[in-house]
C-alpha cells in the first residue's frame, strides 16, 4: 500500500505536468475563441443561432468519443494535439453560451443610457455590457475549467499523458489505489483552479490589486510548478542510460548504440500491454535510448500512430491485426497468417513486423468449473442448445469484432445474452456466477487463479493471437533499434507472460517489477 502510493507519487510530476499543459492551454484557447465569438453572436442573431447550435452539438458528443474521433480527423495524429483540440472544442459551449446570455441580459435601458451619454458601440461594449456580463462569463469559464480538467483524464487512450493514466492503469490492473489517486489528483486540480479563478473574479469585482496579485501569482505558481518537469526536460541535455543508472540491467558503458536517440514506445490499455511497453522501454534504454512511454492507447489509435511514426515500437496481436486492420473475416493457419500480416503491413503502412514474441494471447471462451460441469459444457459447440438461457460477458471491443459475429453464426449462438464490461471485472463476474461465460485472454493469470475452464473451439473459428513486435518505418530503418529489440523475439513463453500478468493483477506488484522479470527471462 505505502509502496503503491509512493510509486504513484513518483509518477505524479510528469502526469500532472501533462494534465496541466493540456487543460490550461485548451482552456486559454477555448476562452480566446469563445468570448469574441460570444460578443459577435450577441450582436448578430444570424451568427448566434448557428454558433450556439454547433457548440451545443459538440457538447452532445460523448467526451470519450470526441477525443477518439480527433485521431482520424487529424490524420492519425496522437498525443497532445488531438486531446488539445477536443478539449478546446469542449470548453467552448459554456463560455460562449454564458457570454451571449450575459450580454443579452444587460438591461436595454442601460445600453440606451450608454448610447445616450455618448458612447460608441465599442465603448458601450467594453465599458458597460462586458463589465455587467462579466459574472456570467466568469461562471462559464469556471464551468469550462471543471469540465476540461475532468475530461483531460480521458485523453490517456489517445496517447496524451494525463492524470487519467492513473485511472486507466489502475482500472486495468485492479490497482484501486491508483484509481483513487488519479481521481483525487484531478479533483484537487479542478478545485484549486476554480478557487483561483473565483479569487480573480472577486479581485476584479472589488477592484483589489492585492487580491488580483495574489490570485495571479497563485495561477502562475501553480501552472509554472506543474509544468516545470516539462520545461526542465526541454532545458537539459537528453538523459542517457548511463546517467540513469536505475535498472538492474547490465550496460555496456563504453559504447551505447542508441546513445542520445529518442524513441516512443506505445501500448494499449491493459495489464499485459503495460508490462510489454515497459519491457520494450527497458530494452531500448539499456541500449542508450531516451524513451517516451505512451501506455493506455486505444488499439487502432496505436496502430495509426505507429504508421505515422508518432510511436516507434509496440506489440500487437496477429488476430487483432487480421480482423481489425486487414478486415479479413476468416482466420487462416497460424504461420500463414503471420506471413501475410507481415507482408501486408509493410506494403500498406510501411510498418515492419519484426517477429513473434513467442506467446499467444488469444480470446478464449471461459466458464466457472462448477457451472461448466453442471451444464456438461466442454466446447463452444456444447453451448448451442442452451444458448437462450446463458449470458456472456466480454469487453466492448470483442463484441464489435468480426470473430464474434462468426462465432455466433457458426456455432448458432444468436440467443446468447451479451454484457459488455471492462476486462478487469469479467473474471470476478464469471467466478461469482453473475454471468455464465466470458471471453478471457489466454495469458490472463486469473483464468488459473479463479479455476476457470477454457472451452474448446473445434471449428477453429477464433483466430490465433500471436504477439508480434511492430516497428514504425523510421525505427525499422535503424539497425540499432532492431538489434536492441531482437533478443525479445521468440523468447516470451505463454507461462512467463501469465506469471508476469499475475504479478500485477493478482499479487499487486508494480508493472516495472513484472517487466524486469520478463527482461531477465529474455536476457541470455
Amino acid at each position, binding site marked *: 500500500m505505502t509502496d503503491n502510493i509512493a510509486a504513484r507519487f513518483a509518477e505524479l510530476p510528469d502526469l500532472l505536468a501533462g494534465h496541466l499543459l493540456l487543460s490550461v492551454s485548451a482552456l486559454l484557447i477555448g476562452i480566446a475563441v469563445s468570448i469574441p465569438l460570444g460578443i459577435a453572436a450577441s450582436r448578430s442573431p444570424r451568427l448566434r443561432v448557428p454558433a450556439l447550435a454547433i457548440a451545443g452539438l459538440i457538447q452532445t458528443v460523448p467526451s470519450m468519443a470526441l477525443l477518439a474521433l480527433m485521431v482520424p480527423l487529424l490524420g492519425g495524429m496522437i498525443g497532445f494535439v488531438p486531446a488539445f483540440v477536443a478539449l478546446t472544442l469542449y470548453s467552448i459551449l459554456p463560455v460562449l453560451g454564458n457570454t451571449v446570455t450575459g450580454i443579452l441580459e444587460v438591461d436595454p*435601458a*442601460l445600453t*440606451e*443610457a*450608454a*448610447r*445616450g*451619454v*455618448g*458612447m*460608441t458601440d465599442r*465603448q458601450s461594449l467594453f*465599458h*458597460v455590457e462586458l*463589465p*455587467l456580463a462579466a459574472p456570467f462569463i466568469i461562471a462559464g469559464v469556471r464551468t469550462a475549467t471543471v469540465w476540461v480538467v475532468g475530461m483531460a483524464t480521458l485523453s490517456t487512450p489517445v496517447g496524451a499523458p494525463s492524470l487519467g493514466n492513473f485511472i486507466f492503469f489502475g482500472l486495468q490492473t485492479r490497482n484501486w489505489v491508483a484509481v483513487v489517486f488519479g481521481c483525487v489528483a484531478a479533483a484537487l486540480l479542478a478545485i484549486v483552479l476554480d478557487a483561483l479563478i473565483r479569487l480573480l473574479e472577486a479581485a476584479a469585482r472589488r477592484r483589489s490589486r492585492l487580491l488580483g496579485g495574489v490570485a495571479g501569482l497563485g495561477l502562475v505558481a501553480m501552472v509554472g510548478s506543474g509544468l516545470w518537469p516539462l520545461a526542465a526536460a526541454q532545458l537539459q541535455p537528453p538523459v542517457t542510460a548511463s546517467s540513469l543508472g536505475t535498472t538492474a540491467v547490465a550496460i555496456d558503458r563504453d559504447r551505447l548504440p542508441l546513445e542520445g536517440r529518442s524513441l516512443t514506445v506505445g501500448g494499449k490499455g491493459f495489464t499485459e500491454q503495460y508490462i510489454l511497453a515497459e519491457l520494450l522501454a527497458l530494452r531500448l534504454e539499456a541500449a542508450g535510448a531516451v524513451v517516451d512511454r505512451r501506455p493506455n492507447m486505444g488499439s487502432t489509435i496505436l496502430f495509426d500512430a505507429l504508421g505515422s511514426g508518432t510511436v516507434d515500437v509496440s506489440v500487437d496481436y496477429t488476430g487483432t491485426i487480421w480482423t481489425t486492420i486487414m478486415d479479413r473475416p476468416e482466420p487462416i493457419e497460424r504461420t500463414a497468417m503471420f506471413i501475410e500480416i507481415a507482408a501486408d503491413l509493410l506494403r500498406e503502412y510501411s510498418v515492419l513486423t519484426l517477429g513473434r514474441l513467442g506467446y499467444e494471447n488469444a480470446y478464449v471462451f471461459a466458464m466457472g468449473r462448477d457451472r461448466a460441469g453442471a451444464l456438461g459444457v466442454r466446447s463452444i459447440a456444447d453451448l448451442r442448445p442452451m444458448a437462450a438461457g446463458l449470458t456472456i460477458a466480454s469487453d466492448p471491443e470483442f463484441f464489435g469484432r468480426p470473430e464474434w459475429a462468426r462465432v455466433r453464426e457458426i456455432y448458432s449462438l444468436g440467443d446468447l445474452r451479451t454484457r459488455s464490461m471492462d476486462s478487469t471485472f469479467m473474471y470476478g463476474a464469471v467466478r461469482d456466477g453473475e454471468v455464465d461465460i466470458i471471453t478471457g485472454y489466454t495469458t490472463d493469470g486469473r483464468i488459473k487463479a479463479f479455476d476457470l475452464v477454457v472451452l474448446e473451439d473445434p471449428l477453429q473459428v477464433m483466430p490465433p493471437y500471436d504477439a508480434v513486435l511492430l516497428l514504425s518505418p523510421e525505427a525499422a530503418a535503424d539497425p540499432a533499434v532492431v538489434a536492441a529489440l531482437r533478443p525479445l523475439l521468440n523468447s516470451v513463453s505463454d507461462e512467463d507472460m501469465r506469471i508476469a500478468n499475475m504479478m500485477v493483477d493478482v499479487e499487486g506488484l508494480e508493472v516495472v517489477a513484472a517487466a524486469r522479470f520478463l527482461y531477465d527471462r529474455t536476457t541470455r
Partner: protein
Amino acid sequence: MPGYTPRAVILELDRVRKSYDGGSTFAVDEVSLRAERGQLVVLLGESGCGKTTTLKTINRLVEPTSGRVLIDGVDTVSVDAVALRRSIGYVFQGIGLFPHMTVADNVAVTTRLLGWKADRRLRRVQELLELVRLDPGDYAAKTPAELSGGEQQRVGFARALAANPTLLLLDEPFGALDPITRDGLRDDFQAIQRELNMTAVMVTHDMTEALLLGDRVVVMRQGRVLREASPPEILSDPNDPYVANLMASPRRNADRVRAMASGGDALEGPR
C-alpha cells in the same frame, strides 16, 4: 407678439416624422417646435403619444424618417451622432445609472469620453455633486445601489450636466419617484435650470408638472402636436377639446382637495 423679446433659438424641430413600418403609420408625425436659450419646453401627452420618440430624435437615439432637427442652427444629420450625444445632456426615464460604476464615475462618464484630464474631471464631479446637493465626500465613492431613488436621479442630473451641454433632454425624470421626493427634486431642478440658463426639453405625462415647470408646453396626441403655447395661454385658451379636457383635470383635482381642506363635504365617507 407684444412684449416678446426675441432670444437665440437653440433647438428647432422642423416637421419631424418617424415611422417604424416603412411609412404606413407614424409614431411622430410632422412635429415642429422650437426652444430658445434658457427655455424649458415640455412635451406633454399620454403614453404612446410619441413624446419620448420625439425627444430621442433630438440626439439621434432615434433617427427621424423625415424632417430636420437643428441645434444652434446646425442640422444634426451633418454632425457625428456620437459627438452630438456627448454635447447634449440626457436624463433617462429609468434613471439609467451604470450599476458597476461609482457615483463619481457615473457623473464623469461623458467628460471621460471627451478626454478630459483626471484632475479636471474630479473638480467637475465635486462641483456637480454640490450643485445637486449631494455631499461629494459622502457620495462620490458610493455605487448607485447604495442610493435612494431621489439621490440616484440627482446623480442622473449631475451626469447629464457634466460636459456643459448646449441642451438638456429629460425623459420623465421624476416619474420613478414618490411624491414628496419628487416635489423637492423638482424645485431643485428648476432652480438649477434657471441658474444655468439651461435650454431643456422634458417629457412628462403629468399635467401639473408640465404647467409648473414649462416655459412652453407642447401637447401631443397620436404623434401629432395639438397645441403649443405657454402655460397661462394654454390654460386660458386650450383651443382643442382634448387639450381642454386635459387642462381641466389638475384644476378639478385642486378644487376638490381645497374643498376637502376647508371642511366641505366634497367627499363623504364613513366616520
